[in-house]
């Protein structure tokens, strides 16, 4: 999620992806996948040849949420020995690019005095980076525009509460699927974070690669997420259940799947952070006690509507009742005529779609990254455990509490360790009330 504090850097030129065109991007992805598979088979054919190196660059973006992109800041690049390589000024998107003579270590310095009023650098004004051959090395500078402080009539605690609510609802959306899958199949799905990442990535590709606006792109991503969830169930978990694979073995298989997908994503997509395009202004609107960007507001509204729909479905529809029945007692549900496998398939599809939507919302506030889902997974676990493993409403309540707790904790702890607070909360819950708020004692074994 985006903190109210400013974020800068590590943004790859999104237009770069358009330039290569959707068709070639897809074939490149396919080729890379093939290549990885070949590597996985241990096939190695060694033929001599020549290496083609491209030019090395350092790139970055200077922007904050309040001031927007910052133009005309001088960026100086020097070698570690202090020899100046080149200087550049940020353009009207706040971006800078400096060509380098070759790979090696470089020091990138920005001119702190020329920053606009109210914007200060958090930390040092120079960064030392190691640039590999042929790489465009992103450089990140932390900028603070003071929006994190309590100034401007905003109450910091209220601001954090609203941010936390947004984040918690987002976690809840992803975690409902995790919890329902656990409830219906007993599987603790460690690969659920990758459902989130894949949803966000798919939407990013549709959005920037095919030029589809973000809302249709998110809907397409949800359909993709549902299909991927179904693929998970039909291609892996149903056959494994049929083989009688134990739950612990299945747990470790899900870890394997998570690693496989996560690092495949990193290879195919790269270690970049990319934003969605066509979002409009990212300026925060003042609501008196707190400030909120329009994106965050829409994110909150969408989360609430979707979660209400999920609750309505669980409560009123036939399939929803069947889901709760299977989660409650699988054998009893089966013997009363419920097609358990079909219910589980629907749960997977729903979980996949919700995780994809959650991924898109996370990508809106936090940009799209290869490990965004895994980072979120641990908070999902915290939320689901707090609420009670296996209960849909528990996941909802627990996740919102975790989200709010994580954001509010920045009142007392530095914001770069706020996730640690969430994880500590998880361990504290296990000490005090392992069955969670809504869980039943019988489940914890």
């Amino acid at each position: 999620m985006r903190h109210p504090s400013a974020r800068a850097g590590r943004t790859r030129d999104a237009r770069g992806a358009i330039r290569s065109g959707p068709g070639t991007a897809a074939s490149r992805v396919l080729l890379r996948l093939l290549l990885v598979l070949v590597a996985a088979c241990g096939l190695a054919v060694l033929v001599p040849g020549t290496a083609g190196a491209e030019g090395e660059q350092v790139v970055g973006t200077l922007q904050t949420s309040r001031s927007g992109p910052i133009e005309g800041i001088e960026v100086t690049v020097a070698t570690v020995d202090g020899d100046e390589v080149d200087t550049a000024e940020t353009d009207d998107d706040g971006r800078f690019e400096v060509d380098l003579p070759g790979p090696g270590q470089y020091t990138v310095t920005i001119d702190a005095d020329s920053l606009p009023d109210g914007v200060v650098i958090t930390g040092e004004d120079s960064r030392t980076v190691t640039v590999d051959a042929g790489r465009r090395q992103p450089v990140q500078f932390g900028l603070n525009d003071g929006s994190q402080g309590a100034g401007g009539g905003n109450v910091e605690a209220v601001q954090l509460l609203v941010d936390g609510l947004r984040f918690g609802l987002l976690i809840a959306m992803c975690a409902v699927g995790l919890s329902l899958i656990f409830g219906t199949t007993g599987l603790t799905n460690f690969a659920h974070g990758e459902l989130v990442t894949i949803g966000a990535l798919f939407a990013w590709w549709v959005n920037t690669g095919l030029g589809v606006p973000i809302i249709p792109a998110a809907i397409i991503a949800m359909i993709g997420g549902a299909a991927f969830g179904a693929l998970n169930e039909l291609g892996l978990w149903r056959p494994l259940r049929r083989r009688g694979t134990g739950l612990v073995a299945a747990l470790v298989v899900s870890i394997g799947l998570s690693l496989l997908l996560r690092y495949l994503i990193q290879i195919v997509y790269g270690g970049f952070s990319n934003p969605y395009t066509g979002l409009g202004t990212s300026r925060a609107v003042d609501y008196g006690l707190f400030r909120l960007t329009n994106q965050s507001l829409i994110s909150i509204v969408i989360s609430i509507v979707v979660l209400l729909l999920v609750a309505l479905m669980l409560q009123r529809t036939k399939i929803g009742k069947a889901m709760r029945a299977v989660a409650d007692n699988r054998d009893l549900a089966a013997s009363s005529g419920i097609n358990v496998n079909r219910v589980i398939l629907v749960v997977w599809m729903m979980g996949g779609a919700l995780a994809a939507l959650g991924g898109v919302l996370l990508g809106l506030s936090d940009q799209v990254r290869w490990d965004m889902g895994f980072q979120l997974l641990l908070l999902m676990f915290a939320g689901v455990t707090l609420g009670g493993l296996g209960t849909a409403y528990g996941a909802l309540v627990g996740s919102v509490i975790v989200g709010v707790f994580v954001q509010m904790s920045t009142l007392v702890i530095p914001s770069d360790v706020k996730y640690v607070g969430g994880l500590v909360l998880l361990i504290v819950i296990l000490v005090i009330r392992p069955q969670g708020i809504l869980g039943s004692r019988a489940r914890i074994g």
Partner: protein
Amino acid sequence: MGDLLNALAVAGKSALGFQAVFFALLAIGLNVHFGYTGLLNFGQIGFAMLGGFGIAISVTQWGLNFWVGVVVGLAAAVFLALLLGLPTLRLRADYLAIATIAAAEGLRLLFRSVSASPVTGGTRGLAGFNGAFISLAPWDTSRRYPILGTRWSGGELWVALVGWVLVALLCLLVWLLMRSPWGRVLKAIREDEDAVRALGKNVYLYKMQSLVLGGVMGALGGMVYVVATGAANPDQFQNANTFLAYTVLILGGSARVLGPVVGAVILLFVIQFADTGLRALIGNGVIPEGLLSATDVAQIRFVLVGLGLMLLLVFRPQGIFGDRREVMLDAR
């Protein structure tokens, strides 16, 4: 052909060097947890990080003796095991899994944060703490020695030697423990916890002892790693390494004394061979840079590990040497 020989040699070095020792030690610890007791510790890398940073922080920041640093690292691992075990060992297996993976990732985030960097060095990490240990080597550590087609520095050779001796000692310890009455109780807990409880054993206490013992072994692994590389950086301790250690364990055969050792040598050889081979192919231009760049290759090992872990558990959960009847991978 030269490239192929080179890839074989580099792979052989990593299969005999400190990398294999590191994963063998992590996996021996996991063997005690998972193989013998049936505990799912998904945060073994957190124990390793505490071990490694125990030395690094003690020596560079507090100016203590190297061996005091070792004790600090081990004590930190014991503390973490107690902290995680107290709430979760009474619960079902997956609660321990969630708590340990969360603790390991949380510790890494904490160690790399800006607020911790005065102590841990943040994302830059710490360096320059292994001098006292390297200088104990009976040979000249500034020279490089050609062995099996690659060159080892004297220091690497020394750490690898001490590391393998440590592995051998721990294997002996595990062997002795597991044929003792204590070890039989652990195995019985793995098979049927309730039956053991009915016999009047304090299952919770045994599980806790197992968690502490395996965690300490993980910490020793982390120490070998940071002493060999001469630097401790939180980002070296990515959680994926825990699962690399699991793959090592299951490949070699869990609940077998030498399973982790065999698994470590084989797996490290395979992934390093794939790594070096692919880099050579990219360097040669066989694989165009646009498809797969040299920086992407570093991720291949985890793709291999993920795939290997899935295939092993589905098709051969007992690994190479394991006994299928002993590998009861079912939930409690």
